[in-house]
Protein backbone atom coordinates (compact mmCIF):
# COMPACT_ATOMS: atom_id res chain seq x y z
CA UNK A 1 0.00 0.00 0.00
CA UNK A 2 2.55 2.87 -0.98
CA UNK A 3 -0.58 3.94 -1.56
CA UNK A 4 1.04 4.14 -2.72
CA UNK A 5 2.62 5.29 -0.07
CA UNK A 6 -0.59 4.50 -0.56
CA UNK A 7 -0.48 2.39 -1.54
CA UNK A 8 0.11 -0.37 0.76
CA UNK A 9 3.29 -2.09 0.10
CA UNK A 10 3.37 -4.50 2.91
CA UNK A 11 4.67 -7.93 2.12
CA UNK A 12 2.14 -10.56 2.94
CA UNK A 13 4.03 -13.18 4.76
CA UNK A 14 4.09 -16.88 4.63
CA UNK A 15 4.42 -19.29 7.46
CA UNK A 16 6.51 -21.50 5.29
CA UNK A 17 10.13 -21.66 6.27
CA UNK A 18 12.22 -19.56 3.96
CA UNK A 19 15.21 -21.88 3.96
CA UNK A 20 14.61 -25.32 2.53
CA UNK A 21 16.98 -28.02 3.81
CA UNK A 22 20.49 -27.10 2.83
CA UNK A 23 21.29 -30.34 1.07
CA UNK A 24 18.55 -29.67 -1.48
CA UNK A 25 20.30 -26.54 -2.50
CA UNK A 26 23.21 -26.10 -4.71
CA UNK A 27 26.55 -25.40 -3.11
CA UNK A 28 28.36 -22.43 -4.53
CA UNK A 29 31.65 -24.35 -4.73
CA UNK A 30 30.36 -26.46 -7.60
CA UNK A 31 29.87 -23.43 -9.79
CA UNK A 32 32.33 -22.20 -12.36
CA UNK A 33 34.04 -18.87 -11.97
CA UNK A 34 31.86 -17.36 -14.66
CA UNK A 35 28.70 -18.51 -12.91
CA UNK A 36 29.91 -16.96 -9.69
CA UNK A 37 30.43 -13.65 -11.43
CA UNK A 38 26.93 -13.79 -12.95
CA UNK A 39 25.46 -14.56 -9.53
CA UNK A 40 27.49 -11.74 -8.06
CA UNK A 41 25.80 -9.29 -10.42
CA UNK A 42 22.37 -10.81 -9.82
CA UNK A 43 22.68 -10.12 -6.11
CA UNK A 44 24.99 -7.15 -6.27
CA UNK A 45 22.87 -4.77 -8.34
CA UNK A 46 19.62 -5.09 -6.33
CA UNK A 47 21.55 -4.93 -3.05
CA UNK A 48 23.37 -1.81 -4.21
CA UNK A 49 20.07 -0.13 -5.17
CA UNK A 50 18.57 -1.04 -1.81
CA UNK A 51 21.60 0.13 0.19
CA UNK A 52 22.16 3.41 -1.65
CA UNK A 53 18.54 4.51 -1.94
CA UNK A 54 16.95 3.09 1.22
CA UNK A 55 19.45 2.33 3.95
CA UNK A 56 22.04 5.03 3.34
CA UNK A 57 19.34 7.77 3.50
CA UNK A 58 17.84 6.15 6.60
CA UNK A 59 21.20 6.28 8.37
CA UNK A 60 21.73 9.81 7.05
CA UNK A 61 18.41 10.84 8.62
CA UNK A 62 19.76 9.75 12.00
CA UNK A 63 22.98 11.66 11.39
CA UNK A 64 21.25 14.84 10.23
CA UNK A 65 18.94 14.79 13.24
CA UNK A 66 21.90 15.84 15.42
CA UNK A 67 22.78 18.81 13.22
CA UNK A 68 21.59 22.22 12.24
CA UNK A 69 21.34 22.82 8.50
CA UNK A 70 19.49 25.18 6.19
CA UNK A 71 19.65 22.68 3.34
CA UNK A 72 22.03 24.65 1.13
CA UNK A 73 25.76 23.84 0.98
CA UNK A 74 27.09 20.75 2.73
CA UNK A 75 29.66 22.93 4.49
CA UNK A 76 26.90 24.72 6.39
CA UNK A 77 26.03 21.60 8.41
CA UNK A 78 26.72 22.30 12.07
CA UNK A 79 26.49 19.95 15.00
CA UNK A 80 23.55 20.59 17.27
CA UNK A 81 23.76 17.68 19.71
CA UNK A 82 20.35 16.65 20.95
CA UNK A 83 19.09 20.20 20.48
CA UNK A 84 16.58 19.24 17.76
CA UNK A 85 15.08 16.55 19.95
CA UNK A 86 14.66 18.78 22.97
CA UNK A 87 13.15 21.40 20.66
CA UNK A 88 10.53 19.09 19.13
CA UNK A 89 9.63 17.51 22.48
CA UNK A 90 9.35 20.82 24.35
CA UNK A 91 8.84 23.76 22.04
CA UNK A 92 7.48 22.56 18.71
CA UNK A 93 3.72 23.11 18.95
CA UNK A 94 2.51 20.60 16.31
CA UNK A 95 4.60 17.69 17.68
CA UNK A 96 2.32 16.34 20.40
CA UNK A 97 -0.87 16.85 18.36
CA UNK A 98 0.80 14.84 15.59
CA UNK A 99 1.67 12.04 18.02
CA UNK A 100 -1.91 12.03 19.30
CA UNK A 101 -3.30 11.94 15.77
CA UNK A 102 -1.06 9.05 14.74
CA UNK A 103 -2.16 7.08 17.82
CA UNK A 104 -5.78 7.93 17.10
CA UNK A 105 -5.28 6.82 13.49
CA UNK A 106 -3.92 3.48 14.68
CA UNK A 107 -6.72 2.97 17.22
CA UNK A 108 -9.42 3.86 14.72
CA UNK A 109 -8.10 1.47 12.09
CA UNK A 110 -7.47 -1.27 14.66
CA UNK A 111 -10.80 -0.98 16.50
CA UNK A 112 -13.17 -0.04 13.68
CA UNK A 113 -11.79 -0.50 10.16
CA UNK A 114 -9.90 -3.79 10.54
CA UNK A 115 -12.69 -5.65 12.43
CA UNK A 116 -15.17 -4.32 9.87
CA UNK A 117 -13.07 -5.77 7.06
CA UNK A 118 -12.89 -9.10 8.89
CA UNK A 119 -16.65 -9.11 9.50
CA UNK A 120 -17.41 -8.44 5.84
CA UNK A 121 -14.96 -11.17 4.76
CA UNK A 122 -16.59 -13.68 7.12
CA UNK A 123 -20.07 -12.82 5.84
CA UNK A 124 -19.00 -13.00 2.21
CA UNK A 125 -17.21 -16.30 2.77
CA UNK A 126 -20.55 -17.99 3.53
CA UNK A 127 -21.32 -18.42 -0.15
CA UNK A 128 -23.88 -15.66 0.08
CA UNK A 129 -25.86 -14.63 -2.96
CA UNK A 130 -24.25 -11.70 -4.78
CA UNK A 131 -20.96 -12.22 -2.99
CA UNK A 132 -18.98 -11.26 -6.09
CA UNK A 133 -20.83 -7.96 -6.44
CA UNK A 134 -20.29 -7.05 -2.80
CA UNK A 135 -16.60 -7.91 -3.09
CA UNK A 136 -16.24 -5.63 -6.10
CA UNK A 137 -17.98 -2.75 -4.33
CA UNK A 138 -15.77 -2.95 -1.24
CA UNK A 139 -12.70 -3.52 -3.31
CA UNK A 140 -12.89 -0.54 -5.68
CA UNK A 141 -11.51 1.96 -3.09
CA UNK A 142 -8.49 -0.32 -2.55
CA UNK A 143 -7.51 0.28 -6.15
CA UNK A 144 -7.58 4.05 -5.81
CA UNK A 145 -4.62 6.11 -4.69
CA UNK A 146 -4.95 7.67 -1.24
CA UNK A 147 -4.60 11.02 -2.98
CA UNK A 148 -7.69 10.32 -5.06
CA UNK A 149 -9.48 9.05 -1.96
CA UNK A 150 -8.68 12.44 -0.42
CA UNK A 151 -10.13 14.34 -3.41
CA UNK A 152 -13.27 12.18 -3.50
CA UNK A 153 -13.92 12.77 0.20
CA UNK A 154 -13.27 16.45 -0.21
CA UNK A 155 -16.23 16.45 -2.58
CA UNK A 156 -18.24 14.65 0.09
CA UNK A 157 -17.26 17.07 2.87
CA UNK A 158 -17.28 20.38 1.03
CA UNK A 159 -19.45 22.97 2.79
CA UNK A 160 -20.22 24.60 -0.55
CA UNK A 161 -21.78 21.65 -2.34
CA UNK A 162 -20.77 18.48 -0.51
CA UNK A 163 -22.90 15.42 -0.01
CA UNK A 164 -22.89 15.40 3.78
CA UNK A 165 -24.05 18.97 4.23
CA UNK A 166 -26.65 18.46 1.51
CA UNK A 167 -28.11 15.55 3.47
CA UNK A 168 -28.11 17.59 6.66
CA UNK A 169 -29.73 20.40 4.68
CA UNK A 170 -32.74 18.18 4.02
CA UNK A 171 -33.54 18.37 7.72
CA UNK A 172 -32.19 21.77 8.66
CA UNK A 173 -32.13 24.25 5.80
CA UNK A 174 -29.84 26.69 7.64
CA UNK A 175 -27.11 24.03 7.57
CA UNK A 176 -27.59 23.11 3.92
CA UNK A 177 -24.54 23.03 1.68
CA UNK A 178 -23.83 26.53 0.46
CA UNK A 179 -25.56 28.13 3.44
CA UNK A 180 -23.36 30.05 5.92
CA UNK A 181 -24.37 27.61 8.67
CA UNK A 182 -23.04 24.56 6.81
CA UNK A 183 -20.57 22.46 8.76
CA UNK A 184 -17.01 22.84 7.51
CA UNK A 185 -15.92 19.23 8.04
CA UNK A 186 -12.35 19.75 6.93
CA UNK A 187 -11.89 23.29 8.24
CA UNK A 188 -12.97 22.68 11.81
CA UNK A 189 -9.91 21.45 13.77
CA UNK A 190 -12.12 19.56 16.21
CA UNK A 191 -13.69 17.28 13.63
CA UNK A 192 -11.43 17.18 10.60
CA UNK A 193 -9.29 14.32 11.96
CA UNK A 194 -12.43 12.18 12.16
CA UNK A 195 -13.32 13.16 8.60
CA UNK A 196 -9.84 12.04 7.49
CA UNK A 197 -10.19 8.77 9.41
CA UNK A 198 -13.45 7.93 7.68
CA UNK A 199 -11.80 8.53 4.31
CA UNK A 200 -8.92 6.23 5.32
CA UNK A 201 -11.37 3.59 6.55
CA UNK A 202 -13.15 3.64 3.19
CA UNK A 203 -9.99 2.24 1.62
CA UNK A 204 -8.67 0.13 4.51
CA UNK A 205 -11.77 -2.08 4.96
CA UNK A 206 -11.59 -3.50 1.45
CA UNK A 207 -7.92 -4.34 1.77
CA UNK A 208 -8.44 -6.21 5.04
CA UNK A 209 -11.47 -7.93 3.51
CA UNK A 210 -9.46 -9.28 0.59
CA UNK A 211 -6.65 -10.53 2.85
CA UNK A 212 -9.11 -12.35 5.10
CA UNK A 213 -11.12 -13.78 2.21
CA UNK A 214 -7.90 -15.43 1.05
CA UNK A 215 -7.15 -16.51 4.63
CA UNK A 216 -10.60 -18.02 5.15
CA UNK A 217 -10.33 -20.01 1.95
CA UNK A 218 -7.06 -21.43 3.23
CA UNK A 219 -8.62 -22.85 6.40
CA UNK A 220 -9.09 -26.62 6.15
CA UNK A 221 -12.88 -27.31 6.11
CA UNK A 222 -12.20 -30.55 8.03
CA UNK A 223 -11.28 -28.43 11.05
CA UNK A 224 -14.69 -26.74 10.97
CA UNK A 225 -16.50 -30.03 10.47
CA UNK A 226 -14.67 -31.63 13.37
CA UNK A 227 -15.60 -28.72 15.63
CA UNK A 228 -19.24 -28.86 14.48
CA UNK A 229 -19.40 -32.58 15.21
CA UNK A 230 -18.00 -31.82 18.65
CA UNK A 231 -21.01 -29.58 19.14
CA UNK A 232 -19.47 -26.14 18.71
CA UNK A 233 -21.80 -23.40 17.48
CA UNK A 234 -20.92 -21.04 14.65
CA UNK A 235 -19.49 -18.42 16.95
CA UNK A 236 -17.32 -20.94 18.77
CA UNK A 237 -16.15 -22.43 15.50
CA UNK A 238 -15.07 -19.03 14.27
CA UNK A 239 -13.33 -17.73 17.39
CA UNK A 240 -11.77 -20.98 18.58
CA UNK A 241 -10.98 -22.77 15.34
CA UNK A 242 -11.05 -20.60 12.24
CA UNK A 243 -9.57 -17.38 13.62
CA UNK A 244 -6.58 -19.08 15.32
CA UNK A 245 -5.99 -21.14 12.18
CA UNK A 246 -5.52 -17.90 10.23
CA UNK A 247 -2.58 -16.88 12.37
CA UNK A 248 -0.23 -16.05 9.46
CA UNK A 249 -2.84 -13.71 7.96
CA UNK A 250 -3.59 -12.22 11.35
CA UNK A 251 0.04 -11.19 11.72
CA UNK A 252 0.02 -9.63 8.25
CA UNK A 253 -3.15 -7.71 9.10
CA UNK A 254 -1.74 -6.42 12.39
CA UNK A 255 1.41 -5.25 10.65
CA UNK A 256 -0.54 -3.71 7.74
CA UNK A 257 -2.73 -1.80 10.18
CA UNK A 258 0.18 -0.45 12.22
CA UNK A 259 2.31 0.46 9.21
CA UNK A 260 -0.63 2.13 7.44
CA UNK A 261 -1.26 4.36 10.43
CA UNK A 262 2.42 5.35 10.61
CA UNK A 263 2.55 6.01 6.87
CA UNK A 264 -0.65 8.04 6.79
CA UNK A 265 0.18 11.12 4.77
CA UNK A 266 -1.53 11.52 1.42
CA UNK A 267 -5.08 12.16 2.64
CA UNK A 268 -4.15 14.89 5.12
CA UNK A 269 -1.72 16.45 2.65
CA UNK A 270 -4.52 16.68 0.08
CA UNK A 271 -6.91 18.12 2.68
CA UNK A 272 -4.72 20.87 4.10
CA UNK A 273 -1.04 19.81 4.08
CA UNK A 274 -1.27 18.43 7.60
CA UNK A 275 -2.11 21.56 9.56
CA UNK A 276 -4.94 22.93 11.69
CA UNK A 277 -6.09 19.74 13.37
CA UNK A 278 -4.66 17.31 10.81
CA UNK A 279 -1.04 17.18 12.03
CA UNK A 280 0.67 13.84 11.46
CA UNK A 281 4.33 12.87 11.99
CA UNK A 282 4.90 12.19 8.29
CA UNK A 283 3.40 15.55 7.31
CA UNK A 284 5.58 17.43 9.82
CA UNK A 285 8.72 15.84 8.31
CA UNK A 286 7.73 17.08 4.86
CA UNK A 287 6.72 20.54 6.11
CA UNK A 288 10.23 20.99 7.50
CA UNK A 289 11.75 19.86 4.22
CA UNK A 290 9.83 21.72 1.55
CA UNK A 291 8.03 24.37 3.55
CA UNK A 292 9.27 27.91 3.84
CA UNK A 293 12.50 28.09 5.87
CA UNK A 294 14.02 24.64 5.58
CA UNK A 295 14.87 23.12 8.94
CA UNK A 296 16.63 19.92 7.95
CA UNK A 297 17.79 19.05 11.47
CA UNK A 298 14.32 19.34 12.95
CA UNK A 299 12.72 17.45 10.07
CA UNK A 300 15.28 14.69 10.49
CA UNK A 301 14.69 14.45 14.23
CA UNK A 302 10.97 14.00 13.48
CA UNK A 303 11.87 11.36 10.87
CA UNK A 304 13.97 9.51 13.45
CA UNK A 305 11.09 9.47 15.93
CA UNK A 306 8.92 8.01 13.15
CA UNK A 307 11.69 5.51 12.31
CA UNK A 308 12.05 4.30 15.90
CA UNK A 309 8.30 3.79 16.26
CA UNK A 310 8.12 2.02 12.87
CA UNK A 311 10.92 -0.37 13.82
CA UNK A 312 8.72 -1.94 16.50
CA UNK A 313 6.17 -3.52 14.12
CA UNK A 314 8.87 -4.16 11.50
CA UNK A 315 11.02 -6.13 13.96
CA UNK A 316 8.01 -8.08 15.25
CA UNK A 317 7.04 -8.94 11.69
CA UNK A 318 10.56 -9.95 10.66
CA UNK A 319 11.15 -12.15 13.69
CA UNK A 320 7.81 -13.89 13.04
CA UNK A 321 8.63 -14.38 9.37
CA UNK A 322 12.31 -15.18 9.40
CA UNK A 323 12.89 -16.12 13.04
CA UNK A 324 12.16 -19.81 12.62
CA UNK A 325 14.88 -20.18 10.03
CA UNK A 326 17.60 -19.68 12.56
CA UNK A 327 16.56 -22.77 14.45
CA UNK A 328 17.90 -26.00 13.00
Amino acid sequence: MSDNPTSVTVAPQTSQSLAPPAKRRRRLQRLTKRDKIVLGFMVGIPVLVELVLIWLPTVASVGLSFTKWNGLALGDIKSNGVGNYSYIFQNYPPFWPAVRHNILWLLFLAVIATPLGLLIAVLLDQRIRGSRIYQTVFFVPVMLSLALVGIIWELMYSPAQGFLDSVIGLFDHSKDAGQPGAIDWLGDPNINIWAALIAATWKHVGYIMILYLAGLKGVDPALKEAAAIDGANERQIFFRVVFPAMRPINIVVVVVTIIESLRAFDIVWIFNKGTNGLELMSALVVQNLIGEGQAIGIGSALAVVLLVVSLVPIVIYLTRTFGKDKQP
Partner: protein
Amino acid sequence: MTDTLAENRSDPSAPQPEHHVAPVGPRRNRYGTHLFLIVMAVLWLIPLLWTIYTSLRTKADTDKHGTFSIAHSLTLSNYTTAWSQGSFATALKNSAIIVIPTVLITLFLASLMAFAVSRFSWKFNITLLILFTAGNLLPPQVLATPVFEMYRLIHLPYTVSDSGSVLNTYWGVIAIIVAFQLGFCTFVMSNYMKALPSELTEAALVDGAGVWMMYYKIIMPLCRPALAALGTLEVIWVYNEYFWPLLLITSGDRLPVTTAINNLQGEFLNNYNLIAAGATITLIPTLIIYFALQRQFVAGLTLGGTKG
Protein backbone atom coordinates in the same frame (compact mmCIF):
# COMPACT_ATOMS: atom_id res chain seq x y z
CA MET B 1 -8.53 -26.60 20.52
CA THR B 2 -10.40 -29.87 20.25
CA ASP B 3 -9.52 -30.47 23.89
CA THR B 4 -11.35 -27.35 24.94
CA LEU B 5 -14.37 -28.30 22.94
CA ALA B 6 -14.37 -31.83 24.35
CA GLU B 7 -14.26 -30.40 27.87
CA ASN B 8 -17.13 -28.11 27.08
CA ARG B 9 -19.19 -31.01 25.94
CA SER B 10 -18.63 -33.06 29.07
CA ASP B 11 -19.18 -30.07 31.34
CA PRO B 12 -22.92 -29.62 31.91
CA SER B 13 -22.47 -25.98 32.98
CA ALA B 14 -20.84 -25.07 29.72
CA PRO B 15 -23.10 -23.29 27.26
CA GLN B 16 -24.61 -25.87 25.00
CA PRO B 17 -25.02 -25.07 21.36
CA GLU B 18 -28.65 -24.51 20.54
CA HIS B 19 -28.56 -26.67 17.48
CA HIS B 20 -26.06 -28.43 15.33
CA VAL B 21 -24.82 -26.29 12.54
CA ALA B 22 -23.91 -27.89 9.30
CA PRO B 23 -20.39 -26.81 8.39
CA VAL B 24 -21.17 -25.70 4.87
CA GLY B 25 -24.11 -24.15 3.13
CA PRO B 26 -26.73 -21.74 4.39
CA ARG B 27 -29.21 -23.17 6.83
CA ARG B 28 -30.64 -20.12 8.54
CA ASN B 29 -32.32 -17.23 6.88
CA ARG B 30 -29.80 -14.59 6.07
CA TYR B 31 -31.96 -11.48 5.92
CA GLY B 32 -29.87 -9.81 8.62
CA THR B 33 -26.65 -10.51 6.76
CA HIS B 34 -28.06 -9.24 3.50
CA LEU B 35 -29.47 -6.12 5.11
CA PHE B 36 -26.11 -5.34 6.70
CA LEU B 37 -24.20 -5.95 3.47
CA ILE B 38 -26.60 -3.91 1.38
CA VAL B 39 -26.39 -0.95 3.76
CA MET B 40 -22.60 -1.15 3.83
CA ALA B 41 -22.37 -1.52 0.04
CA VAL B 42 -24.57 1.54 -0.49
CA LEU B 43 -22.47 3.56 1.97
CA TRP B 44 -19.34 2.43 0.16
CA LEU B 45 -20.72 3.41 -3.25
CA ILE B 46 -21.96 6.87 -2.28
CA PRO B 47 -18.58 8.66 -2.54
CA LEU B 48 -17.97 7.24 -6.01
CA LEU B 49 -21.47 7.91 -7.29
CA TRP B 50 -21.42 11.40 -5.79
CA THR B 51 -18.15 12.17 -7.56
CA ILE B 52 -19.52 10.99 -10.90
CA TYR B 53 -22.84 12.80 -10.39
CA THR B 54 -21.07 16.04 -9.47
CA SER B 55 -18.84 15.71 -12.51
CA LEU B 56 -21.86 15.53 -14.81
CA ARG B 57 -23.53 18.71 -13.58
CA THR B 58 -22.70 22.31 -14.29
CA LYS B 59 -21.93 24.86 -11.64
CA ALA B 60 -24.86 26.94 -12.83
CA ASP B 61 -27.24 24.01 -12.41
CA THR B 62 -26.02 23.35 -8.85
CA ASP B 63 -26.15 27.02 -7.92
CA LYS B 64 -29.67 27.40 -9.23
CA HIS B 65 -31.32 24.22 -7.98
CA GLY B 66 -29.20 23.31 -4.96
CA THR B 67 -26.65 20.57 -4.59
CA PHE B 68 -28.96 17.81 -3.61
CA SER B 69 -31.45 18.46 -6.35
CA ILE B 70 -32.08 16.32 -9.34
CA ALA B 71 -29.91 17.66 -12.09
CA HIS B 72 -31.86 19.53 -14.73
CA SER B 73 -29.20 18.90 -17.31
CA LEU B 74 -26.38 16.46 -17.39
CA THR B 75 -23.34 17.34 -19.41
CA LEU B 76 -19.92 16.11 -20.34
CA SER B 77 -18.59 19.64 -20.69
CA ASN B 78 -16.80 19.43 -17.34
CA TYR B 79 -14.72 16.62 -18.74
CA THR B 80 -13.58 18.52 -21.81
CA THR B 81 -12.82 21.61 -19.73
CA ALA B 82 -10.99 19.63 -17.04
CA TRP B 83 -9.07 17.66 -19.66
CA SER B 84 -7.64 20.77 -21.33
CA GLN B 85 -7.30 23.07 -18.29
CA GLY B 86 -5.85 20.37 -16.08
CA SER B 87 -3.44 19.23 -18.84
CA PHE B 88 -4.47 15.64 -18.31
CA ALA B 89 -2.91 14.51 -21.58
CA THR B 90 0.52 15.55 -20.29
CA ALA B 91 -0.10 14.16 -16.81
CA LEU B 92 -1.22 10.78 -18.10
CA LYS B 93 1.78 10.66 -20.43
CA ASN B 94 4.06 11.43 -17.47
CA SER B 95 2.43 8.62 -15.51
CA ALA B 96 3.19 6.20 -18.34
CA ILE B 97 6.80 7.45 -18.53
CA ILE B 98 7.22 6.67 -14.83
CA VAL B 99 5.08 3.53 -14.42
CA ILE B 100 6.33 1.41 -17.33
CA PRO B 101 10.10 1.53 -16.65
CA THR B 102 9.55 1.33 -12.88
CA VAL B 103 7.53 -1.87 -13.08
CA LEU B 104 9.83 -3.52 -15.64
CA ILE B 105 13.01 -2.67 -13.74
CA THR B 106 11.52 -3.70 -10.40
CA LEU B 107 10.36 -7.08 -11.69
CA PHE B 108 13.66 -7.70 -13.44
CA LEU B 109 15.87 -6.87 -10.45
CA ALA B 110 13.54 -8.65 -8.01
CA SER B 111 13.53 -11.82 -10.12
CA LEU B 112 17.37 -11.79 -10.32
CA MET B 113 17.68 -11.36 -6.59
CA ALA B 114 14.96 -13.91 -5.83
CA PHE B 115 16.57 -16.43 -8.17
CA ALA B 116 19.95 -16.05 -6.51
CA VAL B 117 18.67 -16.34 -2.94
CA SER B 118 16.11 -19.06 -3.56
CA ARG B 119 18.10 -21.46 -5.72
CA PHE B 120 21.51 -21.18 -4.05
CA SER B 121 22.65 -21.18 -0.44
CA TRP B 122 24.46 -18.08 0.60
CA LYS B 123 25.77 -17.17 3.96
CA PHE B 124 23.78 -13.95 4.01
CA ASN B 125 20.57 -15.13 2.35
CA ILE B 126 18.30 -14.36 5.26
CA THR B 127 20.14 -11.17 6.20
CA LEU B 128 19.62 -9.81 2.70
CA LEU B 129 15.95 -10.76 2.60
CA ILE B 130 15.46 -9.07 5.98
CA LEU B 131 17.22 -5.97 4.70
CA PHE B 132 14.94 -5.89 1.65
CA THR B 133 11.70 -6.58 3.47
CA ALA B 134 12.41 -4.09 6.24
CA GLY B 135 13.28 -1.44 3.67
CA ASN B 136 9.92 -1.98 2.04
CA LEU B 137 8.04 -1.41 5.31
CA LEU B 138 9.61 1.91 6.31
CA PRO B 139 7.46 5.03 5.98
CA PRO B 140 8.91 6.90 2.98
CA GLN B 141 9.05 10.12 4.99
CA VAL B 142 11.79 8.59 7.17
CA LEU B 143 14.23 8.86 4.28
CA ALA B 144 12.64 11.72 2.37
CA THR B 145 15.05 14.43 3.55
CA PRO B 146 18.34 12.66 2.72
CA VAL B 147 16.99 11.40 -0.62
CA PHE B 148 15.94 14.93 -1.55
CA GLU B 149 19.32 16.40 -0.53
CA MET B 150 21.25 13.59 -2.21
CA TYR B 151 19.39 14.20 -5.47
CA ARG B 152 19.97 17.92 -5.18
CA LEU B 153 23.70 17.53 -4.58
CA ILE B 154 24.43 15.06 -7.39
CA HIS B 155 25.42 17.23 -10.31
CA LEU B 156 24.44 16.14 -13.77
CA PRO B 157 25.36 17.92 -17.01
CA TYR B 158 22.60 20.20 -18.26
CA THR B 159 22.34 18.14 -21.41
CA VAL B 160 21.04 15.29 -19.26
CA SER B 161 18.99 17.19 -16.72
CA ASP B 162 17.78 20.76 -17.02
CA SER B 163 17.91 21.17 -13.26
CA GLY B 164 21.61 20.25 -13.22
CA SER B 165 20.87 17.59 -10.60
CA VAL B 166 18.74 14.47 -10.19
CA LEU B 167 15.86 16.57 -8.84
CA ASN B 168 13.00 17.10 -11.25
CA THR B 169 13.98 14.11 -13.42
CA TYR B 170 11.85 11.09 -14.21
CA TRP B 171 14.82 8.80 -13.54
CA GLY B 172 15.20 10.09 -10.01
CA VAL B 173 11.57 9.25 -9.26
CA ILE B 174 11.83 5.88 -11.00
CA ALA B 175 14.96 4.93 -9.02
CA ILE B 176 13.49 5.58 -5.58
CA ILE B 177 10.19 3.85 -6.36
CA VAL B 178 12.10 0.84 -7.72
CA ALA B 179 14.13 0.69 -4.50
CA PHE B 180 10.97 0.81 -2.40
CA GLN B 181 9.06 -1.82 -4.39
CA LEU B 182 12.08 -4.13 -4.70
CA GLY B 183 11.70 -5.53 -1.19
CA PHE B 184 8.12 -6.67 -1.65
CA CYS B 185 8.67 -8.13 -5.12
CA THR B 186 11.84 -9.99 -4.11
CA PHE B 187 10.04 -11.48 -1.13
CA VAL B 188 7.10 -12.70 -3.19
CA MET B 189 9.23 -13.95 -6.08
CA SER B 190 11.65 -15.84 -3.85
CA ASN B 191 8.78 -17.62 -2.09
CA TYR B 192 7.35 -18.53 -5.46
CA MET B 193 10.68 -19.82 -6.79
CA LYS B 194 11.31 -21.89 -3.68
CA ALA B 195 8.16 -23.84 -4.41
CA LEU B 196 9.59 -24.94 -7.77
CA PRO B 197 11.29 -28.37 -7.57
CA SER B 198 15.05 -28.19 -7.14
CA GLU B 199 15.56 -31.04 -9.62
CA LEU B 200 14.85 -28.58 -12.42
CA THR B 201 18.04 -26.66 -11.90
CA GLU B 202 19.99 -29.71 -10.71
CA ALA B 203 19.41 -31.38 -14.05
CA ALA B 204 20.28 -28.25 -15.98
CA LEU B 205 23.54 -27.92 -14.10
CA VAL B 206 24.48 -31.52 -14.87
CA ASP B 207 23.81 -30.77 -18.51
CA GLY B 208 26.33 -27.96 -18.25
CA ALA B 209 23.92 -25.03 -18.37
CA GLY B 210 25.23 -21.83 -16.86
CA VAL B 211 23.51 -19.85 -14.12
CA TRP B 212 22.10 -17.33 -16.57
CA MET B 213 20.58 -20.10 -18.72
CA MET B 214 18.94 -21.57 -15.63
CA TYR B 215 17.44 -18.22 -14.78
CA TYR B 216 16.39 -17.27 -18.27
CA LYS B 217 15.35 -20.58 -19.83
CA ILE B 218 14.10 -22.61 -16.88
CA ILE B 219 13.01 -20.52 -13.91
CA MET B 220 11.62 -17.41 -15.56
CA PRO B 221 9.17 -19.20 -17.89
CA LEU B 222 7.78 -21.04 -14.86
CA CYS B 223 7.33 -17.75 -12.99
CA ARG B 224 4.96 -16.25 -15.55
CA PRO B 225 1.86 -16.49 -13.35
CA ALA B 226 3.64 -14.79 -10.46
CA LEU B 227 5.07 -12.12 -12.75
CA ALA B 228 1.65 -11.41 -14.26
CA ALA B 229 0.01 -11.03 -10.86
CA LEU B 230 2.84 -8.99 -9.40
CA GLY B 231 3.08 -6.87 -12.54
CA THR B 232 -0.60 -5.93 -12.43
CA LEU B 233 -0.35 -5.04 -8.76
CA GLU B 234 2.78 -2.98 -9.29
CA VAL B 235 1.30 -1.06 -12.25
CA ILE B 236 -1.55 0.08 -10.03
CA TRP B 237 0.64 0.83 -7.02
CA VAL B 238 3.16 2.82 -9.00
CA TYR B 239 0.39 4.66 -10.87
CA ASN B 240 -1.04 5.51 -7.44
CA GLU B 241 2.27 6.78 -6.09
CA TYR B 242 1.74 10.28 -4.75
CA PHE B 243 4.55 11.14 -2.40
CA TRP B 244 7.81 10.73 -4.33
CA PRO B 245 6.81 12.81 -7.38
CA LEU B 246 5.39 15.43 -5.00
CA LEU B 247 8.76 15.68 -3.29
CA LEU B 248 11.16 15.23 -6.19
CA ILE B 249 9.46 16.87 -9.19
CA THR B 250 9.25 20.62 -9.14
CA SER B 251 7.85 21.56 -12.52
CA GLY B 252 4.13 20.99 -12.85
CA ASP B 253 4.26 19.77 -16.44
CA ARG B 254 6.27 16.73 -15.36
CA LEU B 255 3.97 15.53 -12.60
CA PRO B 256 2.24 12.18 -13.03
CA VAL B 257 -1.52 12.30 -12.84
CA THR B 258 -1.90 11.06 -9.25
CA THR B 259 0.28 13.87 -7.92
CA ALA B 260 -1.11 16.43 -10.35
CA ILE B 261 -4.64 16.09 -8.95
CA ASN B 262 -3.29 17.92 -5.93
CA ASN B 263 -3.23 21.05 -8.10
CA LEU B 264 -6.80 20.70 -9.33
CA GLN B 265 -8.22 22.61 -6.38
CA GLY B 266 -6.01 25.59 -7.10
CA GLU B 267 -6.47 25.54 -10.85
CA PHE B 268 -10.21 25.06 -10.81
CA LEU B 269 -10.79 27.62 -8.05
CA ASN B 270 -13.16 25.51 -6.01
CA ASN B 271 -15.28 24.60 -9.00
CA TYR B 272 -16.23 21.24 -7.55
CA ASN B 273 -17.80 20.02 -10.77
CA LEU B 274 -14.48 20.39 -12.56
CA ILE B 275 -12.58 18.78 -9.67
CA ALA B 276 -15.00 15.85 -9.77
CA ALA B 277 -14.48 15.48 -13.52
CA GLY B 278 -10.71 15.52 -13.00
CA ALA B 279 -10.98 12.90 -10.26
CA THR B 280 -13.08 10.69 -12.51
CA ILE B 281 -10.54 10.97 -15.33
CA THR B 282 -7.81 9.85 -12.91
CA LEU B 283 -9.97 6.95 -11.82
CA ILE B 284 -10.61 5.55 -15.28
CA PRO B 285 -7.20 3.94 -16.01
CA THR B 286 -7.31 2.16 -12.65
CA LEU B 287 -10.80 0.84 -13.24
CA ILE B 288 -9.91 -0.38 -16.73
CA ILE B 289 -6.92 -2.31 -15.38
CA TYR B 290 -9.00 -3.63 -12.54
CA PHE B 291 -11.84 -4.98 -14.62
CA ALA B 292 -9.50 -6.37 -17.27
CA LEU B 293 -7.10 -7.99 -14.83
CA GLN B 294 -9.16 -8.36 -11.65
CA ARG B 295 -8.04 -11.92 -11.01
CA GLN B 296 -4.38 -11.04 -11.45
CA PHE B 297 -4.68 -8.10 -9.12
CA VAL B 298 -6.31 -10.02 -6.29
CA ALA B 299 -3.88 -12.89 -6.84
CA GLY B 300 -1.01 -10.44 -6.52
CA LEU B 301 -2.36 -8.96 -3.30
CA THR B 302 -2.70 -12.32 -1.65
CA LEU B 303 0.23 -14.03 -3.36
CA GLY B 304 2.49 -14.27 -0.35
CA GLY B 305 -0.35 -14.27 2.16
CA THR B 306 -2.03 -17.54 1.33
CA LYS B 307 0.93 -19.78 0.74
CA GLY B 308 2.32 -22.22 3.23
